[in-house]
């Protein structure tokens, strides 16, 4: 970000000065003042909206995470007590563990499988059709995804258990959504159904930027398909891989909608992730200070990933 903005800033500054902007404007002092103030009027609506509805709340959450607050009486400052309590809170520990499951599941099923499918699709004559089909669920809201997969995984009258019984595999029926940690895995399947398409598209974009020459050279030298992939395609794909891994990581930290509609984090708060824990602590238990501290943990983890991610991008730039 910073790298591309600097030259632009310099350009804007340079270009604005020598232009005859004053030609059309009145020479009276009031006119001049209005002309100088006008550019700020253009940015006012966006700055006000973002300031009031995003930046102020984010700053306030940082402060609230150091308080105890039930939403009725004024918040009382308690230092880092919320954070200290987190590490012994079984709900928080379960949620952290589930978040790890989510990250691992999405990395394996969405990122790795997405890469494999993109490589296969890249040379397929039906790629355009397949791309559209696999992307289709990404156009559906997380809430509707949750409802759809709830109908499939529901223990009593879900389609999956009914189908298993119908074909004589009744022994394989499971309480897909009420047995931890199976319920988390079931929901990961639903999330991957939604997220695989975009991952494939991103990898396909990356594949199309790869020059064909090294691949053809490797093929001429007798490399088999796996060797070409492992030693030529994969290293060349590194830039887009970094981007996809970063996005999928951060998205799996923040997953909320699918869980809220499939299990609401239950039973007994067994399938929550940090995003759901934050919501429940705040808006179900009304422990706003505690909820704010969970939001802060989520922020710190997300920022940590972002730092690694930006570093990886810059390292690549240095290599080049």
């Amino acid at each position, binding site marked *: *970000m910073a790298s591309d903005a600097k030259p*632009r800033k310099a350009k804007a500054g340079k270009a604005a000065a020598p232009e005859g902007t004053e030609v059309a404007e009145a020479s009276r002092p009031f006119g001049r003042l209005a002309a100088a103030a*006008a*550019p*700020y009027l*253009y*940015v006012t*609506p*966006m700055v006000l*909206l*973002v300031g009031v*509805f*995003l930046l102020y*709340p*984010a700053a306030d*959450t940082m402060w*609230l995470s150091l308080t105890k607050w039930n939403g009725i009486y004024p918040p009382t400052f308690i230092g880092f007590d919320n954070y200290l309590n987190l590490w012994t809170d079984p709900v928080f520990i379960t949620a952290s563990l589930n978040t790890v499951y989510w990250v691992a599941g999405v990395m394996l099923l969405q990122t790795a499988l997405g890469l494999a499918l993109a490589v*296969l699709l890249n*040379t*397929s*004559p*039906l790629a355009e*059709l397949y*791309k559209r*089909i*696999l992307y*289709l*669920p990404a*156009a*559906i*809201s*997380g809430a509707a995804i*949750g*409802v*759809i997969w*709830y*109908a499939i995984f529901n223990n009593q*009258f879900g389609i999956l258990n*009914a*189908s298993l019984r*119908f*074909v004589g595999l009744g022994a394989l029926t499971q309480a897909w959504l009420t047995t931890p940690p199976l319920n988390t895995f079931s929901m990961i399947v639903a999330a991957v159904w939604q997220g695989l398409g975009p991952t494939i598209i*991103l990898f396909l974009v990356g594949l199309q930027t790869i020059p064909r020459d090294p691949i053809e050279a490797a093929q001429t030298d007798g490399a088999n398909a796996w060797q070409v992939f492992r030693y030529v395609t994969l290293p060349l794909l590194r830039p887009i891989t970094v*981007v996809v891994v*970063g996005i999928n990581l951060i998205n799996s*930290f923040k997953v*909320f909608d699918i869980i*809220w*509609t499939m299990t609401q984090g239950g039973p007994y708060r067994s399938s929550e992730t940090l*995003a759901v824990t*934050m*919501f429940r602590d*705040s*808006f179900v238990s009304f422990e*706003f200070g505690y*909820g704010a501290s*969970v939001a802060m943990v*989520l*922020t710190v983890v997300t920022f940590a990933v*972002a730092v690694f991610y930006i570093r990886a991008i810059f390292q690549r730039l240095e290599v080049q």
Partner: protein
Amino acid sequence: MAIVTARLKETRPGGWAVTVLVGILAVAWLVPLWLVVVTAMKTTPEYFHDASQWSLPENPLQLFANVSDAWFTSGMGAGFMASLLYGVVAAGLAILFASLGAYSITRLRIRWPFFWFVLVFSGTIFPFQMYLIPLFKLYQDTGLYDTQLGMIFFYTAIALPFCLFVMRGYFATIPRELQEAARIDGCSDFGIFRRIILPLSWRPIAVLFLFQFTWIWNDLLFGLVLSTSDGVRPITPSLAGLQGQFAHSGPPLVLAAALLATLPTIALFLLLGRYMMRGLTLTTAGRAGSD
């Protein structure tokens, strides 16, 4: 080049096996959607009597009865109209305000243009959970809680940073000569923005509108926190509420409601999927800077 790739396809061993394999996966990907549509066409007793859940509906027209049930008696209609309002108005306002800001930052004599950009763009770096509690409190204190105006304010704000990112990048590519020529012809700053810059930018504006509308339509979290009553509550929290009584309302009704909630975004995707997928790469460029 085309001939080379075509030859590569031919010589690639097992190319068709791959196509078939991915084809099976693609079919598997459509199965949940198929089940949703088929189930939404059944009556509740029919659903509970069907042992496998795979049989075809007795009367597909039952779909309309289920959808109208969801629309009128389960509050989905009110949610649908509310979400439509928020999606159109907030996405439009966000693009307008972001364009005004981007115009000032890239073309007008404003001090610290990069500061204003970073200030607004920093609205994308936090996880959404950081906004929820103070927003809830702010909305309760100011009477914005559970109002359409409050929802529009928030959705406009949350859509703004990314719109600014895209519009600022796009405006920078518009040649300055156009602006200077217009100024010599006596056009004011705002006239240049309205008559030259905006009409030239219809492409990114269309992609942004598509993206922001879809995002707002699909949002659940802020709808849950900032609204509660029919007419204000967007469609996704309405659906989640209906889902809470899955067995009670009957699975066909709930899935008909899910279909209703999905229809606009799926239709947009089928009509404009090409732009949506292109927009995805745009988003990624934005994320690369933000996350």
